[in-house]
């Protein structure tokens, strides 16, 4: 087994409002092979993102693997709508950071070029 950080494997890792009550997260890979390898690794699943963000299952509204974009995408419910007083991220744009360092365990025979 070799271990990589998710940011070494993904081209894009981002978060953004999806309407006023939700924040959606996109993890996009450069090619099919990396996308498939990360999916097989089980590093990004419904359970792993719930654990990472400390959320109950009810807050995870969507979890989708989107093949045309080689992307894993999930969406969470906000506790209060975006832009309410006290909301520190009204665009939901900086909530992805904990995903960057998620460890992905991959077979030794897979060779991955670091992505920029």
């Amino acid at each position: 087994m070799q271990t990589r950080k998710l940011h070494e494997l993904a081209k894009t890792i981002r978060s953004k409002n999806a309407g006023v009550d939700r924040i959606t997260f996109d993890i996009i890979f450069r090619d099919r092979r990396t996308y498939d390898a990360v999916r097989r690794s089980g590093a990004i699943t419904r359970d792993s993102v719930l654990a990472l963000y400390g959320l109950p299952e009810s807050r995870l509204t969507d979890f989708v693997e989107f093949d045309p974009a080689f992307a894993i995408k999930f969406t969470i419910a906000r506790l209060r709508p975006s832009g309410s007083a006290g909301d520190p991220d009204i665009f939901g744009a900086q909530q992805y950071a904990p995903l960057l360092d998620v460890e992905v365990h991959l077979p030794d025979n897979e060779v991955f070029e670091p992505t920029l």
Partner: protein
Amino acid sequence: MQTARIICPNGHLGFAPLKPASFALGVAAGPDFIAADSGSDDIGPGPLGSDTCTSPLAWQTHDLEAMLLAAHARGVPMIIGSAGDTGTNSRVDLYVGIIKELAKKHGLAKFKLGYYYSEVSHAYLRGKIRSGDIIEGLEGRDPLTETELDASARVVAMAGVHPFMKLLDQGADVIIGGRSSDSAIFAAAALHRGYEEGLSYYLGKVLECASFCAEPYGGKETVLGEIVDGGVHVTAMHPAQRCTVASVAGHAMYERSNPNHEFVAGGMLDMSQCHYEQISEKTTRVTGPRFVPIDRIRVKLEGSAKVGERFVGMAAVRDPYTIKHIDTVIAWARQQVHDRFGATGYELHYTVYGRDGVMGPLEPVKTPAHELCIVVQGVAPTREMAEEVCITGTRQMFYARLPEVKGTAGSVAFLFDEVLPASPAYRWSVNHTVAVDDPLELFPTHMTEAGL
């Protein structure tokens, strides 16, 4: 069949200015329509509630001027949706006025200027609620109640293609729209030219954020979209940008919970069978989108309710013992506000930068930094009370009583010893849908003239 080549220079007109160089290339490519969306709910509920713009007038005018002159020179329609960030009636009037002023300034020959409104009256919605025609909540919200309706300062409805198509049919040269679905602005143009719904709505979907569907990343650059032989072709105009399979497919899921389905007034765009193909250096072709019409149209509503006047304060901490006990410091200050004003009738928010300021309870890192900045927000019915709530909640952190603190001359550092007036606090009170019998009933259209 006539072509429907559409350029979009800006994903949120006014929020930041379009980039003129790629826009000029887009205009030179010979578009049949020049269109852009000018609204977003990302800006929070404040502008809708207070009926103001978050975008500066100068930037709005800059983009409207560039688009108007290009459209007029080519003799093609210009279409704007969600005028002035929120698409309220006053923002539509503002943009109609800007277009008229620009036409006069440049001595443009007379042209037809169409516009429509999107605000929905409380009386209309109250009638729906009382008649049992439920105003359904989106994203898990309960149905709209009269109490929440009464709390709302303003409600807008999100138009589909219908008012745009009506105005195009009437020969409008320029259209200023109230609130609308982003994709509808562009889809209406393609539908007007007789293209089928699936491709037309997908064309709108891909163009709505301008160069966000291209790579490398770079906003406010122009993209060109058209329907060719049963597929949508999208092309980046900036010399260094390309529309690739990855960038176009990636954009399909941008700011949406579900990458396969997009709901608009009138139905649902199904992108689950889309096929993406790179057909040249800068162009990607998309085939397979389908549109599924709905029997009774439901229109999305957005409403904003005022919470109160607001002041903001700031304080910082460097003592490691105080950092470790920052929640005790905040609890002390909260208690002082409670002693003065009671438990309810105001809001007091603490955002602790250096610990979990950006993510709050979602933050997995539990070790704070060596210094913290605490931003305090006080919200209350009057400015006087909001200021006092905020200054009490801020200044009392200075006097927090920590049993083992070495520094007994003050628990926090102040950047300044005052609190600052901020915009009033609003909240999204309406995120619902209402059923309509006629897709135009919430969107009255008007036609006027501009130019000499």
